[in-house]
């Protein structure tokens, strides 16, 4: 019990200290921030090692919450470390570290909570800290404040749905303890409603369609460490944690609900990756991938069989790792060049090698290239879907094809991203920003390298390390059909690389040749630089997709925009009724009186 309290006390107390420190004393704020996150990480590791399972009416630790807890701590620490340099030029540093620590604490709380009121409390508080962290954002105040507003409306509004879901659960089970619930969706429509409400809440947090629309805006305008921390990693952990709890512990799903989850997952994978293909801003592009990857997790968990759930959870973990890493590399690029707009970037591999290598590893991981971690988890998800087919469903082939197709498109869009930022032609940075581009400070590259290393480690030793230590304790030992032996595969790949290198050395082939582009004898001016994004404009021009894209860019598929338009339309109508003339107001009063009288006469 006391362990859990300390777990919450450390980040919250340091957070309060950081927030109340004067803005001017930056070193002190940074020290508190780092100390708080290190303390949290250290203590959460201690708890992870020593407290395998614990249940009370308020708190609960089990296999599932343990490893999510641990990774919340890890990401908190890495982001705090990364922020040291990155956030230097931002104002309101005290609030930044304060809310960062609050976020760590609240995510611990949300994962630990066994009481649903406690859960919704921490859950809602996370929406608030996210809002505050976004408002710290960059120079474009209009964009920042609009993104922050949109985020809190979607995420906070979904918390209201969560309250409703919890209230229904309470009505059905007469209990608020998550461990004692087992509601069958098939028994009553209310239970189904509660499930959908809570699932939508988890979608909003994790960012599955249709509740995803805050993520791209948030990513574009929030400081990058914030994006890397919340929408990319911790929010994914929490959203999928809740979904897993719902599917495995609280509810027993029927086929319709499973299909609901699978359809959301499949649609998320495809639609988001299609949107990612046409983005011109690295942060927005990554954000759409952050949405797209949620689809795999939802697909995995929606299968409701152990292997699918294991795959979904593993993918959640992997996604948090590589997506965090990708955002951090994008942050490094922005830190050095001042932009993440793809048209203005290129050729950075030469200047920022460590960032580039981390990027490549993470990008390959997200694209599902073996032997990296993304491959293993996607593979488990596919196995789960195939298993679904063995159980007798007919629709599984659709989900499987969607997932695989999405994977291919992911690879395509990361080719574009890598090419546009790190390869391709180099624009004149010195002219644009006034100084030379160089590698970022160690405190910024270290988190990237750690995460990239985790991508490798979790891929190569997938079954021995993460699955055995983290996932199986959560969902039970899973029998994995087929064979994929990542360690062996890695060895083979390494052997292949070594052989190739030897051949390269032996052959001494002249593989590189610098030559100017030949354009009819003209010198290529800077303006006609071919950027990576241009290649992908053809996708936008395809006939059917063109209309869909143009609608999407008018935000016709954005639930927030739709709601906003509907509400404003109604508001305009009601507003016209308030004409400002006293006489009509008095008439309203009498009409109201008559109406109530009429109702009373009719009802009695």
């Amino acid at each position, binding site marked *: 019990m006391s362990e859990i309290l300390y777990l919450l006390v450390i980040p919250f107390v340091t957070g309060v200290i950081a927030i109340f420190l004067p803005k001017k004393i930056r070193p002190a704020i940074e020290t508190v921030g780092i100390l708080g996150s290190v303390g949290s990480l250290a203590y959460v590791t201690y708890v992870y090692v020593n407290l395998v399972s614990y249940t009370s009416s308020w708190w609960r630790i089990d296999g599932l919450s343990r490893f999510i807890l641990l990774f919340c701590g890890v990401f908190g620490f890495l982001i705090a470390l990364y922020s040291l340099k990155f956030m230097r030029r931002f104002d309101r540093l005290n609030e930044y570290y304060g809310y960062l620590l609050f976020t760590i604490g609240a995510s611990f709380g949300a994962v630990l909570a066994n009481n649903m009121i406690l859960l919704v409390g921490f859950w809602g508080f996370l929406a608030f800290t996210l809002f505050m962290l976004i408002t710290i954002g960059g120079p474009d105040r209009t964009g920042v404040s609009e993104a922050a507003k949109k985020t809190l409306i979607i995420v906070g509004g979904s918390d209201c749905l969560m309250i409703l879901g919890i209230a229904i659960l309470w009505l059905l089970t007469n209990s608020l303890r998550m461990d004692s619930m087992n509601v069958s969706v098939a028994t009553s429509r209310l239970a189904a409603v509660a499930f959908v409400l809570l699932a939508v809440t988890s979608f909003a947090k994790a960012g599955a369609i249709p509740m995803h629309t805050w993520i791209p805006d948030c990513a574009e305008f929030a400081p990058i460490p914030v994006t890397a921390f919340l929408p990319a990693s911790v929010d994914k952990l929490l959203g999928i944690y809740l979904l897993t709890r719902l599917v495995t512990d609280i509810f027993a799903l029927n086929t319709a609900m499973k299909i609901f989850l699978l359809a959301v997952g499949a649609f998320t994978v495809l639609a988001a990756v299609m949107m990612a293909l046409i983005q011109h801003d690295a942060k927005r592009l990554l954000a759409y991938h952050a949405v797209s990857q949620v689809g795999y997790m939802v697909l995995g968990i929606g299968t409701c069989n152990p292997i699918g759930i294991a795959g979904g959870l593993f993918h959640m973990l992997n996604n948090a790792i590589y997506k965090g890493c990708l955002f951090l590399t994008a942050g490094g690029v922005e830190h050095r060049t001042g932009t993440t707009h793809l048209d203005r970037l290129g050729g950075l591999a030469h200047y920022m090698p460590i960032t580039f290598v981390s990027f490549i590893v993470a990008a390959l991981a997200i694209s599902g290239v073996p032997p990296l971690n993304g491959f293993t988890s996607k593979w488990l998800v596919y196995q789960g879907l195939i298993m679904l087919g063995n159980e007798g469903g007919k629709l599984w082939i659709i989900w499987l094809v969607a997932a695989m197709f999405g994977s291919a498109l992911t690879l395509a869009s990361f080719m574009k991203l890598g090419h546009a930022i790190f390869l391709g032609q180099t624009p004149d940075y010195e002219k644009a920003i006034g100084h030379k581009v160089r590698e970022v400070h160690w405190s910024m590259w270290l988190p990237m390298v750690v995460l990239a290393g985790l991508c490798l480690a979790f891929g190569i030793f997938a079954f021995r390390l993460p699955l055995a230590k983290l996932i199986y304790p959560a969902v039970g030992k899973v029998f994995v059909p087929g064979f994929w032996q990542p360690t062996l595969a890695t060895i083979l790949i390494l052997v292949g690389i070594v052989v190739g290198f030897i051949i390269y050395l032996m052959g001494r082939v002249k593989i590189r040749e610098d030559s100017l582009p030949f354009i009819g004898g003209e010198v290529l001016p800077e303006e006609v630089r071919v950027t990576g994004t241009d290649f992908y404009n053809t996708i936008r021009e395809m006939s059917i997709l063109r209309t869909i894209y143009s609608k999407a860019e008018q935000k016709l598929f954005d639930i927030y925009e739709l709601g906003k338009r509907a509400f404003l339309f109604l508001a305009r109508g009601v*507003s016209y009724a*308030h*004409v*400002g*003339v*006293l*006489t009509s107001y*008095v*008439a309203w009063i*009498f009409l109201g009186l008559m109406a109530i009288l009429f109702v009373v006469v009719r009802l009695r």
Partner: protein
Amino acid sequence: MIHYLLGILLFVIGLYGVLVKRNLFKIIIGLIIMEYATFLLFALVGFREHGTAPIQPGVAGKVFVDPLPQALVLTAIVIGLGTTALIAGLAVRIYEKYGTLDIRKIKKLKG
């Protein structure tokens, strides 16, 4: 019964003033008529057929009118005076600012 009906008729006349008239002062007068109709109703509630003033206590067999409404109506009239003074003052100031007494033109606040 007829008293009550007349009271209610008076109330409706006042209501007509508030709802239909455009002039601020006519609206105020309508309001006052409504107020006084309620006061009248209140006084009538205390009315007893053939009742006398409730001055001699302890006399058996004699019908008194109910004294309580009378006392209260006096209080209410005083309150009504206060509100009337205030609203008339407001109307004068509005005329100074807007240059009109037409309620339909006094609509800066709307929506």
